[in-house]
């Protein structure tokens, strides 16, 4: 940066008073060109910005359903399947 300021000031013979202003301009310009956060934030899986709001709302919606109690008949169903299988396994075990 220093090198560039010097170069420019040398070339264009900018009055010394304008130098801070010029430094500021160059700094802003550099920040824009840097592939920093501003440029890369969108490439991640979890987006920032407006689509981050979408992600949050999607997660909230999903979680609200996840947090609902599991309907009792699912648990009953699993128990029944388990029992039926235990019986079948016993028979199997007898013959094997």
């Amino acid at each position, binding site marked *: 940066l220093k090198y560039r300021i010097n170069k420019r000031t040398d070339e264009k013979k900018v009055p010394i008073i304008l130098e801070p202003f010029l430094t500021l301009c160059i700094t802003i310009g550099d920040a824009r060109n840097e592939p920093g956060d501003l440029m890369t934030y969108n490439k991640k899986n979890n987006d920032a910005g407006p689509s981050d709001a979408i992600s949050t709302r999607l997660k*909230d*919606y999903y*979680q609200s*359903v996840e947090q*609902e109690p599991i309907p009792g008949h699912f648990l009953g169903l*699993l128990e029944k*399947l*388990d029992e039926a299988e235990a019986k079948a*396994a016993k028979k199997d075990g007898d013959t094997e």
Partner: protein
Amino acid sequence: VTKHHAGSEEKSTFKREMLAALPSLRAFAVSLSGNRSNADDLVQDTILKAWSKQDQFEPGTNLKAWLFTILRNEFYSKMRKKGREVQDSDGLFTQQMAQAPAQLGALDFEDFKVALAQLPEDQREAVVLVGASGFSYEEAAEVCGCAVGTVKSRVSRARSHLMELLEVSGSSDYGPDHSSAPIVAKSFHN
């Protein structure tokens, strides 16, 4: 070579992991079908299928992804059987809008639910699997039976689609209202 004659310990692990996956599986079903009663049918069918096919499941691999795959296939085969019948979600919306004043928090989800229901199925499942169910792009691709790149592009299309829809629905002075929006969207799709 170990034979897959699942021992009782393996079976109880299978059952325990299946139980643990149920809330997420059910949320996926609700997101896909937009309707709790259809979703619960889907989950029940998935439990039965998974149980009968549990010898095909390789212990140590991703049971959650396996269950989601079964549920997804069930969903599409039901859709195919139903033909081009409009989903029941419209009736449900009216019903839920009537309940809304009792549960104010639900209103916020209602907008989102309506928007989600308007997405094409492939985009909806992709964005839900990656954005809410906690799957990686690779796992989601496995569940959907498509390439990772396809999932990525569906997710990004779904996100921009949702952004558009939710911005518009923010000012509901014009355009279809909550209960008619999904029907209008459907008729454009068909």
